[in-house]
């Protein structure tokens, strides 16, 4: 190595140490994704080899020097059928295999822990249910299915963790989900892969996979004091949601206890499931989501709550498991200084204000 200048040598060494050829497989889905990937690589290599062999072989065998007179051949239905059906069959295998994988990646298991992620120009904000907030980092425990509920505050972003082989677009105005279960501790790249403006390439972060024990420690050390649902509760009170959604017999809005994942009938007669997306939409575009039997009196909160606020509210509503819990919120509301005198109007009795919510 004497003839290589030390500067260059340092440079090369740094390079080679960083030289990656294959991304780590760090989630349960990664090996499955890679299996399909390598199957396709194999098929492609075989296909390419056949094509190259045909071209090179024929070029050698039938070059003008060796084969001065061409023999005219019209074609062959049998061969046409062969190279129609075989590729089609292979592609269909890939299609089915890929579809299975697709549904697996985009269908979170029931026991998944939900973390909300908000994309905005140009950062990722993670909201843990315990109230931990993070920017451009995401701490997750190993061996636990994590569901990411994504939303963007402005433009399209795309939440991509190459080591987990998962990716999902963060769309403004709509929740999308993706899930993974990390299998190895470590720090992995988190990219925004959808072009989102000037600092698109700075919208990168780290996913830190920890053992469950470390994760627990991390949760405790980085708590903000309130859980996400508690944040939501506060917001619920300060926005006077409980003036109507108070679970009293004369309430002007439906009770929200156990509303999450319930089947609702809307005033239009449509049946819907109250999932995260529905809850969010019902807060921001209430008039499209009037539960049957209620008047369309709810104002919109579009522009008044940040996406994080909406997430907190959604998380709060998801955790409301009884009318008693709602009443408790109500009490705190009445005690809040800004709500003094702002007692919920009891007179307006909506006709047929029964609970429409069936668990």
């Amino acid at each position: 190595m004497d003839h290589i200048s030390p500067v260059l040598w340092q440079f090369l060494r740094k390079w080679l140490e960083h030289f990656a050829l294959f991304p780590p497989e760090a989630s349960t889905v990664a090996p499955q994704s890679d299996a399909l990937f390598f199957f396709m690589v194999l098929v492609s290599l075989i296909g390419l080899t056949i094509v190259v062999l045909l071209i090179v072989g024929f070029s050698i065998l039938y070059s003008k020097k060796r084969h001065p007179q061409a023999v005219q051949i019209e074609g062959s239905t049998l061969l046409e059928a062969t190279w129609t059906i075989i590729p089609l069959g292979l592609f269909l295998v890939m299609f089915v295999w890929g579809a299975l994988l697709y549904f697996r990646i985009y269908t979170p298991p029931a026991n998944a822990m939900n973390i909300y992620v908000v994309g905005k120009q140009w950062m990722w904000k993670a909201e843990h249910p315990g109230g931990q907030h993070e920017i451009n980092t995401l701490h997750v425990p190993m061996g636990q299915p994590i569901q990411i509920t994504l939303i963007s505050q402005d433009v399209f972003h795309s939440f991509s963790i190459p080591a987990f082989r998962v990716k999902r677009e963060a769309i403004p105005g709509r929740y999308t989900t993706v899930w993974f279960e990390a299998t190895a501790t470590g720090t992995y790249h988190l990219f925004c892969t959808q072009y989102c403006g000037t600092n698109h390439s700075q919208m990168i972060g780290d996913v830190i996979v920890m053992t469950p024990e470390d994760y627990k420690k991390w949760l405790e050390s980085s708590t903000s004091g309130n859980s996400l649902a508690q944040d939501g509760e506060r917001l619920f009170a300060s926005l006077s949601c409980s003036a109507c959604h108070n679970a009293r017999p004369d309430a002007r809005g439906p009770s929200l206890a156990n509303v999450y994942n319930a089947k609702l009938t809307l005033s239009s007669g449509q049946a819907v499931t109250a999932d995260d997306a529905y809850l969010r939409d019902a807060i921001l575009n209430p008039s499209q989501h009037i539960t049957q039997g209620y008047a369309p009196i709810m104002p919109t909160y579009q522009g008044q709550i940040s996406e994080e606020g909406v997430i907190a509210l959604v998380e709060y509503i998801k955790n409301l498991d009884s009318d008693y819990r709602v009443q408790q919120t109500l009490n705190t509301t009445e005690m809040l200084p800004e709500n003094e005198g702002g007692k919920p109007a009891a007179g307006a009795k909506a006709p047929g204000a029964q609970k429409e919510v069936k668990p």
Partner: protein
Amino acid sequence: MSDSTAIASGAPAEAHHEHPPYQRHHFESVEQQFDATNFAMWLFLLTEVMFFGGLFTAYLIMRNWYYQAFVVGSHQLSIFWGTANTAVLICSSFTMAMSVWSAEVRRRKSLLVYLCLTLVFGLTFLGIKGIEWHEKWEKHHVPGMHYSVQSFVNPQSDPEVYKEYQDKPLAPDMAQKTEEYFFLYFAMTGMHALHMVIGVGILIFMIFRARAGAYTTGHVTFVENFGLYWHFVDIIWIYLFALLYLISRH
């Protein structure tokens, strides 16, 4: 297949034939020239269908999402003017068809009359469209330009429309979505009116040429092709009338 044989039979005839003055040098026969330009016009209309197709798709999706807003939005449109305009445009289509006929049977006078009638109907349509747009402007229903949701959150403030439909007030968030309706209303009728304006321009050009007798010597291609365009614009309006004015009245 059939057209290639037609060309084949046309080719030898051409050898001892004088070209009519309107035949372009690169065509073998007048037939071929007519067929080609006629087909080209149809292809152009095909692109127009797809052009409006994008707008129709957007309209259908938005109408599904914001049904109530689209209903009360459409209540703002005048059935009277809409129907009148439809009738006017249908009549103009008829006169246009008659212009083509006049050219085919080589009657210069009647061609001129029908072209002028078509022009008058076309201008009437644009005039009525102008009246309607002006009304929207006065009521602040032009999206992005001092748009006001007054008529939708408080329907009584708009007595004329209220008398007819007794709309319930919309929640403010839905009322805001009427802007979406009017955006599409203006985009679609505006795009349609733009086609009308272009058509009127060509009509005026054609009237001058027809006076000079350009279309009554057997060369009907231009009139025929313009007719196709004009009828196409008519068809678009038939659908716009149904979608924007009629389907949401109940």
